[in-house]
């Protein structure tokens, strides 16, 4: 009886002010679409960074004087460091293959010189850090090792990617925070209007002894419903449009478009749904402050 009464009251409240409820749902939808969009942007940047940094190698060019077992020892030593995922030895012949690959079309003259005397190419160790951002530490440790002639890394590109990723994350976080706050305030306002419209009825309810939760629950459910529907609409639109958004984004970032993983999409969808519902309930609770006193 009680549960049915609460549900009836919630649906009545929604039916009584359909335009106000629709406006709240729409704004939650727009806001959560932006939040979900921001999550996708952040994910896309991270994905981009992962693709880039999978190829990140700290390259330690070795002195020609190093013997075979000294090279192996050096390789093993570096591989044992924390933060180092993999160390691959590049022989002179592998270096030549690589030079052919990179220089053949654009710098045939340089390649011709190398081809004349391939021994000028040094052997090297290609070190892959566990985290891309750790390259500096690895570079500094290798630099002082005996037998290492020179160390090279794609520093600028890595720094730029890491920095850009952090900026986007921060931006997305702030967008989420501001939009979330706006959603809560809007729902609070909707519920406040609903409480105000029903103030006579609520006063009577309180006078005849209706419990506090009994009075509040229909409004909390209304807020919950508004948040949930707004979030569901946002998820629907993003699921339909996400590939286009990602492609657009990655075209502007000059990188390859990547497919959005199903698990990623569903877990984030659930999170957005939860956020919408929570924002709705929080907004409703906020909206009732000071209006339902004894």
């Amino acid at each position, binding site marked *: *009886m*009680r549960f049915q009464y609460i549900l009836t009251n919630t649906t009545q409240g929604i039916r009584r002010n359909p335009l106000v409820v629709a406006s709240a749902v729409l704004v939650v939808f727009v806001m959560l679409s932006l939040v979900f969009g921001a999550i996708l942007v952040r994910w896309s940047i991270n994905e981009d960074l992962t693709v880039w940094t999978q190829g990140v190698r700290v390259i330690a060019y070795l002195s020609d004087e190093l013997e075979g077992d000294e090279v192996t020892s050096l390789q093993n030593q570096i591989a044992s460091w924390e933060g180092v995922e993999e160390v691959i030895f590049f022989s002179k012949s592998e270096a030549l293959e690589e030079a052919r690959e990179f220089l053949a079309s654009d710098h045939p003259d340089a390649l011709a010189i190398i081809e004349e005397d391939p021994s000028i190419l040094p052997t090297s160790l290609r070190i892959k850090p566990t985290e891309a951002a750790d390259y500096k530490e690895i570079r500094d440790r290798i630099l002082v090792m005996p037998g290492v002639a020179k160390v090279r890394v794609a520093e600028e590109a890595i720094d730029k990617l890491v920095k850009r990723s952090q900026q986007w994350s921060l931006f997305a976080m702030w967008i989420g925070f501001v939009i979330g706050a706006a959603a809560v305030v809007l729902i609070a306002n909707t519920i406040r209007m609903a409480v105000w419209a029903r103030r006579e009825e609520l006063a*009577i*309810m309180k*006078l*005849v*002894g*209706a419990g506090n939760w009994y009075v509040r629950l229909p409004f909390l459910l209304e807020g919950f419903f508004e948040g949930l529907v707004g979030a569901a609409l946002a998820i629907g639109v993003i699921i339909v449009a996400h590939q286009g958004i990602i492609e657009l984004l990655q075209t502007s970032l000059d990188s390859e478009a990547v497919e959005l993983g199903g698990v990623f999409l569903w877990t984030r969808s659930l999170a957005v749904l939860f956020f919408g519902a929570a924002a709705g309930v929080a907004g409703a609770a906020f909206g009732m402050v000071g209006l339902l006193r*004894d």
Partner: protein
Amino acid sequence: MIKLEGVTKVYDDVTVAVKNVTLDIAKGEFVFLVGPSGSGKSTIIRLLLRQEPPTEGEIWVAGKHLNKLPSWKVPLLRRSMGTVFQDFKLLPNKTVYENVAFALEVIGRPKHVIQAQVPQVLRLVDLATKADRMPQQLSGGEQQRVSIARAFVNRPLILFADEPTGNLDPGTSVGIMRLLDRINRTGTTVVMATHDHAIVDAMRRRVVALQRGAVVRDERGGVYQESAAPVASPAEDESGE
């Protein structure tokens, strides 16, 4: 049943609505709170309903010390009270039956209890044949009877009535007073704020007269106008009898 001890209510640190009121109302009593507008009648009723806390003093209602009652227990207190207002406070979108049933629904009474009690109380107020009418289809007196039915349907220990005849003509008011008297005879304590001389004079019940927030007279079997007798407490009255 009801006890006020040195109760004062001040609004905004300036307006004294109730001043040092001490009052004891026994179970089953019918008490009129009389006095001109602004004398503090309605404020006392609001204090007894725990709609507001007193600035000073202590209040007990139905065995509960209102000063110490946590807000989550207020609904339980209200279930032992019924309230009737001058403007009826009926829900315009509900029928007579639904308005009365509403008081039971919101406190979670089961359907079969509602179906049994609502027709019963509608018969008591003589509105059984108008159960399906909307409030705006009823006369003022009938609307007030619906309001009384709603206040009484849960069989409260105390019924508070704040100017219940204020919007009614004298003939209709007599009918409402008969109804309140009938309810009082079932053992329900009735506290009624009014400035209707004729009703108070006709009923001859306990009269607590207020002026500028203070009790100026407390008299059993009293009338509206101050008698020549000095202010006497019911206890003194009884001892004198």
